């Protein structure tokens, strides 16, 4: 149906978006790649020189890199497990008929719209603070010693904050998937004497598998780049206890002005993210019928 004329028009209308994105992706990425092979410190201008893979050697053998890699994996993994488990529970709950379902749904998805700096500061100060926080007040009320969350369990505390932010997303997607489940299959299984647990394991979970994969992949993309929550709560500390790869690269380049080393770290982060991206793209590509 498409004529030569409309194909020319298609190329013309598509080009601004393609050119902009190409420029946005390629130019800075090539610059980062180039910087990563240089000795380049913003505090010592004019001393730039080619040093081969030395930046990569330093970055990849730095103990801070290993702890950052571990923290990144723990943060991504912890939040994924908690949001998917919690999301399935919440989706099952919100799928039941009860009074005020619309309002409860609004309450549950609300945290997703809270900007990261606000949620992190509210949790840090008003809930988790060992002196004035609400959790400390509750602990004292119960006769317990208040717990200094961000000092004694910093990474777990950040996982908790990020989980609170992402739980609505997982819930919404799993709930949408759950609502497309054929009710008659559940009823038929019930008639055949399948208990609630059996129905969950053999019918509901397989039906949710696709949605769970989508949640896992999309959240992973965002969770690999968690930044604001760390910046305003712990600044990556104590020590490097809450430094993830994103924060490590930020600290190296914009706090220590080591452009070369930071660039090498940035490239490492791109490679890690690409491994995840390949899976997500396949998943969405399979679903796209053009």
């Amino acid at each position, binding site marked *: 149906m498409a004529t030569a004329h409309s*194909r020319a*028009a*298609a190329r013309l*209308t*598509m080009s*601004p*978006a*393609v050119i*902009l*994105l190409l420029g*946005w*992706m390629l130019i*800075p*990425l090539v*610059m*980062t790649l180039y*910087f990563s092979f240089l000795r380049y410190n913003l505090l010592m201008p004019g001393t730039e020189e080619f040093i081969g893979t030395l930046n990569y050697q330093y970055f990849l053998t730095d103990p801070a890199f290993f702890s950052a890699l571990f923290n990144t994996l723990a943060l991504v993994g912890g939040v994924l497990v908690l949001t998917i488990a919690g999301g399935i529970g919440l989706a099952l*709950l919100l799928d039941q008929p009860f009074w*005020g379902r619309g309002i409860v749904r*609004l*309450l549950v*998805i609300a945290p997703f*719209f*809270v*900007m990261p*700096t*606000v949620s992190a*500061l*509210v949790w840090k*100060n*008003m*809930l988790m603070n060992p002196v004035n926080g609400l959790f400390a*007040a509750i602990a004292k*009320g119960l006769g317990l010693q208040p717990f200094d969350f961000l000092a004694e369990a910093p990474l777990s505390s950040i996982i908790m904050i990020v989980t609170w932010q992402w*739980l609505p*997303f997982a819930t*919404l*997607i799993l709930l*949408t*998937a759950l609502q497309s489940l054929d009710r008659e299959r559940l009823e038929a299984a019930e008639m055949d004497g399948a208990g609630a647990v059996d129905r969950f394991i053999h019918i509901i979970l397989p039906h949710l598998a696709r949605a769970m994969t*989508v949640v896992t992949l999309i959240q992973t*993309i965002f969770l*690999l780049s968690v*930044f*604001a929550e760390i910046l*305003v*709560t712990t600044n990556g500390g104590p020590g490097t206890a809450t430094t993830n790869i*994103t924060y490590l*690269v930020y600290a190296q*380049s*914009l706090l220590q002005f080591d*452009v070369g080393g930071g660039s090498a*770290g940035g*490239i490492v*982060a791109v490679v890690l993210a*690409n491994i995840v*991206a390949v899976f997500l793209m396949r998943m*969405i*590509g399979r679903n*796209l019928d053009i």
Partner: protein
Amino acid sequence: MARAATNRQKLVVTLIAWTVGIVIFFPILWTVLTSFKTEAEAVATPPTFLAFHWTLENYSEVQQRSDYFLHFWNSVVISVGSTLLGLLVAVPAAWSMAFVPGKRTRDVLMWMLSTKMLPPVGVLIPIYLLFRDFGLLDSRIGLVIVLTLINLPIIVWMLFTYFREIPGEILEASRMDGAGLRDEILFVLLPMAVPGIASTLLLNIILAWNEAFWTLNLSASQSAPLTAFIASYSSPEGLFYAKLSAASTMAVAPILVLGWFSQKQLVRGLTFGAVK
């Protein structure tokens, strides 16, 4: 009998669901309540829930001390500006992908998506240095540009999935009648796609409003949107809980309301159409 049992079951579910909902919502509720307290009451032990002296002074103090409205306005300009600019570029692109698909349309769509997966730290340094050299650091226009590019793939994808549901024959008919490309998009496609464009607009304003990597790294006092303004409360002086709460409430409230309105489109937009 059966009805009584269902009703009792429904009551139990209602109680559980409301409890869970309120627990999840509680940090937001607590922030809103604290914003109306005095600083002394905000840290009182035991904490007061509703029986405190309600005051609005935190709100006026946040404005006076740090020019809240400047940052609010920055957020509005940056999120609305980047979304509109993105739509301007994305509507023609999505039109061609949906109505004149070629052999490579699928590849282009997937490639656009892949740019979204580029971690921001991978390009942080060059962007920072380019912005420094072009005088775009701490400028609203710089942030508008970056957020437009960041959200462009999502805008194109969302529009594409909406446009695809519009029958192409109508557009073809207008073409037969001699409508040019511009007229076809402006007067035939857009009126039919208003709901889809509106949800795309809404979701992208929300995403841009809450974006907190580039806004934190590329802005300082002048162009700082609310994300960066709130971050300045991470190293405060003196008692600040009530003021932090007031600033947070004002930063979150408008977007929360928008979010509640667009919750149905959220799933579709954020999964690139993989879950509808």
